[in-house]
Each structure stands twice: as structure tokens, then as C-alpha cells.
């Protein structure tokens, strides 16, 4: 590459050309412009069909279009007060803040930009807990939360807080009566995620919010997988704190937001990142203006297209689930059938080992659960919390459907996946026993 660049250049200079334009045209003739290579040790010549939208979504071209000027032209620090670079960046950041606020129905002052949903969740849970620790010390959450919520709670246990990890019903939803029983005078916060990242079930936010409001408990929801995909309104749903992630709604990675209610009740929190006092002292550090603008545009587009996207995703999701059910037997959809965000489809293909199926589906980008735990071979703790047996939990795949998914892709994955499941089942002695009518749960296995 370097050699190819240098040779033509020297040749061109030797010929004593008249203008730089001519030099450039000569260089272009000899070297094709090549973007930096991003594929390492790749053996396939095409990219796999992307069905892992629960892990991350591609950046929408409309989002990138708004971000680029902040990288190439308007690079000012939004906190600079002495020149136009700063003023412009600040204006862009504030416009983005309005778009985020509009999407969830709050005011811009209630939005704090963070590095992502993990930081938002940490700030919400630890921040609130530490601010109010002298008055109350009990927090309720669920067993199926994202790791960052569970881990934040574990750390708070070390600081002397009592945490209740609510079990979920078989359909993945929480039991409201149980939640009400667990609330005590000491309960400070209830944290329940909106849409589960692994199984896609949608918790009854409004009911939880109203219950919390009635009992004088703050309600936090991790809405990383919900915002921009299903309608969310913090006032209707009585939400006091809400976490947003940029890269789950076609925005950039490394940016998120936390909604903190300002009125009735006013929520206070002790910041976990201290410094220059940006974001009203709630999150110090220079606000990354290009990323914030990206998140803002992603929220604007999401609000504008919410209906269109929701309808499209719902249709494809229904088509996919029905497709699997008509092609294969022993297919189980994990989580509630109705109370869900249809863009996350978690299916167990009984008698097939999930990892083998993933290996066979090398032309489809998929995962068996959340990206955070995909390195381990442990079955998903979310599925285990639903009461899914260990062997079935091992056979589950998570399909993500979004605005860029096409029907042709779903058709392909239906055919290919069904073919591979049948092929793997043919090799499975368990499946053979099932076909012969043996009830596997009654088989006594010999231990070695």
C-alpha cells in the first residue's frame, strides 16, 4: 500500500507538473482510496445478517449526518463561554436535550447526560441511596434486571442497605401484590426494568409507578431497551428516574441519559462522578457534544417514526414466531406472549444445544442471551429466574428485530435455523427418545 503510494508520487514530481490539481489526479489514478480495514482474521467474504439488535443497533444515517459536523467543523467544548465554538456546541447540546426530553415527556432540565445506561443505572441507584441513606435504607429490585442494576445493589448491600430481589412469574412479569407486600416504611426505591434485554417482556410500568407513588417510594426504571421503541411517558407512568442508552435506539455508543424528576417529588442524588459540576453537578465531565447530538437526533427520529417502526417490528416478529412454530415442533417462546416488546424474540429449541446451533448459523449474527454473559457457558440467569429448566435454557436464542431488518432476512433465518435445528435433532439421542414417546423427566440417569 505504502509502496504503491510513493512510487506514483515520485514519478509525478519528476515530471514537473504545473498544478497541484494535476498531481492529485495522477495520484488518484494509481491508488484507489481505501478505508481503514476493520475485519480481522475474517474467513467469510460477506457480513452475517444482523439479528443481535438487543446487543446494539446500527447508527442510523440520519444520526451520523447530525454528528459529523461536530467532529469535522464545530469541535468546541460546550462549556466554553468565551467564543463561538463553545456557544455553538452548547446550543447543539441543548437542542439534543430537548429531543430526548420530548421523547419521554419531561422537561430538558430533568435530563442528565451520562456515558450510557450502565452509568445511568449506577447513578440512579447509588446516587439516590447515598443521598437519602439517613432516612431510608431499603431497595427493591427484581431478579431479572440487567447486571449493572444487580451489581450496583450488591455494592449497596456492603454499604449497609437491605435489598429485596423480587422473583418474577413464569412469564417474566413481576407480581404486583408481592411488590406491595415487600414495601415497608424503610423502602426508598423500587427499580424495575421496562423491557427485559434477554426476553423482551414489558413490565407493567404504570401500575408499578402508581403503587410506588401511593406508598411514597421512588420508582426507577431501566428503559434502555424500551425508549424509542414503545411509547414511554414519565408523567403517565409515575416514573421518577429513567435510564436511556444511545446505542439501543440507533444512536452512538458511549452516550446515555438519566431522567431525574424535578417536581412532585423532587428527586435528589449524590453524584458518583465528581468534578467540574457539569450537568447541574449531577454528572461532572465535559459533555461529549457529538455523541449527545447523535442521541438527540436518534430520539427525534424515534419519536417521529415510533408508530411506523412499532408496526413494522410487530409484523416481522409475529411472522418470525409463527414461522418457527409452523416449521418445527418443541419451540418455546420465552416470556409473556402479549406483554412484550416484539423486537426481542427469545426462543428455546428443545433438544438442541444452543452453542452448536450458533456455530451452525455462521451467516447470522445472533446470541444466546445478553452480550455481557455470552462468554460464559452458564445458562442465562434471566431464563433461570423464569423457572426455565437448565436444559431448555441452554437451547435458547435471542433474535432482535429492528427498523433495518428486512422480511427477506427473516425468511432466510427461518429456513436456515429450522434446517439446522432438524439436522442437530437428528443426531440427538434425546430427541429420538422423545419421538419414541419416552417422557425425559421420568428417565433415571446413571451418574458416573
Amino acid at each position, binding site marked *: 500500500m505504502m509502496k504503491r503510494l510513493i512510487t506514483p508520487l515520485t514519478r509525478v514530481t519528476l515530471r514537473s507538473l504545473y498544478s497541484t490539481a494535476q498531481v492529485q489526479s495522477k495520484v488518484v489514478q494509481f491508488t484507489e482510496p481505501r478505508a481503514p480495514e476493520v475485519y480481522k482474521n475474517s*474467513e467469510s467474504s*460477506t*457480513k452475517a445478517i444482523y439479528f443481535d439488535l438487543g446487543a446494539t443497533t446500527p447508527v442510523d*444515517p*440520519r444520526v451520523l*449526518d447530525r454528528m459529523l459536523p461536530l467532529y469535522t467543523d464545530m469541535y468546541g467544548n460546550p462549556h466554553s463561554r468565551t467564543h463561538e465554538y463553545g456557544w455553538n456546541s452548547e446550543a447543539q447540546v441543548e437542542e439534543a436535550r430537548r429531543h430526548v426530553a420530548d421523547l419521554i415527556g419531561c422537561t430538558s432540565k430533568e435530563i442528565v447526560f451520562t456515558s450510557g445506561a450502565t452509568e445511568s443505572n449506577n447513578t440512579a441507584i447509588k446516587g439516590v441511596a447515598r443521598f437519602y441513606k439517613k432516612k431510608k435504607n431499603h431497595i427493591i429490585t427484581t431478579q431479572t434486571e440487567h447486571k449493572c442494576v444487580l451489581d450496583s445493589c450488591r455494592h449497596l448491600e456492603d454499604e449497609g442497605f437491605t435489598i429485596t430481589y423480587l422473583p418474577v412469574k413464569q412469564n417474566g412479569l413481576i407480581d404486583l401484590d408481592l411488590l406491595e407486600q415487600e414495601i415497608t416504611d424503610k423502602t426508598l426505591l423500587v427499580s424495575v426494568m421496562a423491557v427485559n434485554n434477554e426476553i423482551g417482556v414489558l413490565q407493567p410500568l404504570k401500575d408499578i409507578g402508581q403503587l410506588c407513588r401511593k406508598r411514597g417510594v421512588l420508582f426507577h426504571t431501566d428503559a434502555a431497551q424500551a425508549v424509542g421503541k414503545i411509547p414511554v411517558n414519565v408523567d403517565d407512568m409515575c416514573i421518577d428516574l429513567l435510564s436511556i442508552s444511545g446505542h439501543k435506539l440507533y444512536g452512538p455508543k458511549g452516550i446515555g441519559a438519566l431522567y431525574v424528576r424535578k417536581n412532585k417529588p423532587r428527586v435528589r442524588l449524590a453524584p458518583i462522578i465528581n468534578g467540574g459540576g457539569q450537568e447541574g453537578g449531577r454528572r461532572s465531565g465535559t459533555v461529549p457534544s457529538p455523541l449527545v447530538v447523535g442521541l438527540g437526533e436518534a430520539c427525534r427520529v424515534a419519536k417521529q417514526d415510533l408508530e*411506523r417502526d412499532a408496526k413494522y417490528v410487530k409484523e416481522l416478529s409475529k411472522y418470525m414466531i409463527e414461522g418457527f412454530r409452523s416449521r418445527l415442533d418443541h419451540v418455546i417462546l420465552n416470556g409473556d406472549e402479549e406483554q412484550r416488546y416484539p423486537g426481542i424474540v427469545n426462543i428455546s429449541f428443545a433438544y438442541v444445544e444452543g452453542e452448536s446451533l450458533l*456455530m451452525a448459523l*455462521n451467516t447470522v449474527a445472533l446470541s444466546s442471551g445478553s452480550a455481557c454473559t455470552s462468554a460464559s457457558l452458564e445458562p442465562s440467569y434471566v431464563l433461570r429466574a423464569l423457572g426455565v429448566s437448565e436444559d431448555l435454557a441452554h437451547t435458547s436464542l435471542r433474535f432482535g428485530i429492528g427498523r433495518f431488518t428486512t422480511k427477506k432476512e427473516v425468511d432466510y433465518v427461518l429456513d436456515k435455523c429450522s434446517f439446522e435445528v432438524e439436522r442437530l435433532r437428528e443426531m440427538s439421542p434425546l430427541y429420538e427418545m422423545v419421538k419414541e414417546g419416552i417422557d425425559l423427566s421420568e428417565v433415571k440417569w446413571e451418574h458416573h
Partner: protein
Amino acid sequence: MSRVQGAIDKSQVLMLYRNLLKAGNKFADYNFREYAVRITKEDFRNNQNDTDGKAVEKNYQYGLDQLQLMRRQSTINQMYAQKMSFMDPRVSDDIRKKDEMSVGSRTNEEDDEH
């Protein structure tokens, strides 16, 4: 950016429609391309019976802005494209078969990824 002035006639709308489809088809990425074409068709179909001059003017201006955006973004998309999607109709059946056979380069290293 140019602002629309006066009434918009049918030929202008048709021209915009054609140009939008053309720009959308220039995305190197299969998914962006399909999306651009899908929503362009949907938007024009939904608004085809609009008779309100103001609304037509507003939508026409929106379409012009989207056209500029799609031209910029499809160019950038082409500049950085490295591999076509497996689903891309431009991929030949031979290559598809080959890729289905390849084991992939999944690394099975045990790491403490979170």
C-alpha cells in the same frame, strides 16, 4: 439550502420521488438501502392524495432535505463499506454457498468479558 417557493406540481413531486429512490439505492449497506427505499415508497403512498397546498409544500421541502441527507450519507457509506451483507442481492450464489460452509472465525478464548 434551497427553499421551496410557490405551488408544487406533480412532475416536481415525481422527480423528487425518483431522485430519492436513486439516492437510497446508492447505500452500500443492504439494510440501509432497503430501509431508504421502503420508507420513501411508504411516505409517498401515504401522502399521494394530499390536496392541501401548504402540506404538499412542507412535505416537498422535507423530501428535498432528505434527498441531500441521503446523497451525503450514501456517499460516506460507500467510502467505508468493506463487506456486503450475506443477504445483499449483489452477492452471487457461489459466494453464499462458500460462506455458509466456512466455519467462521469465532474465537473460543475464555475471557472475562462483561
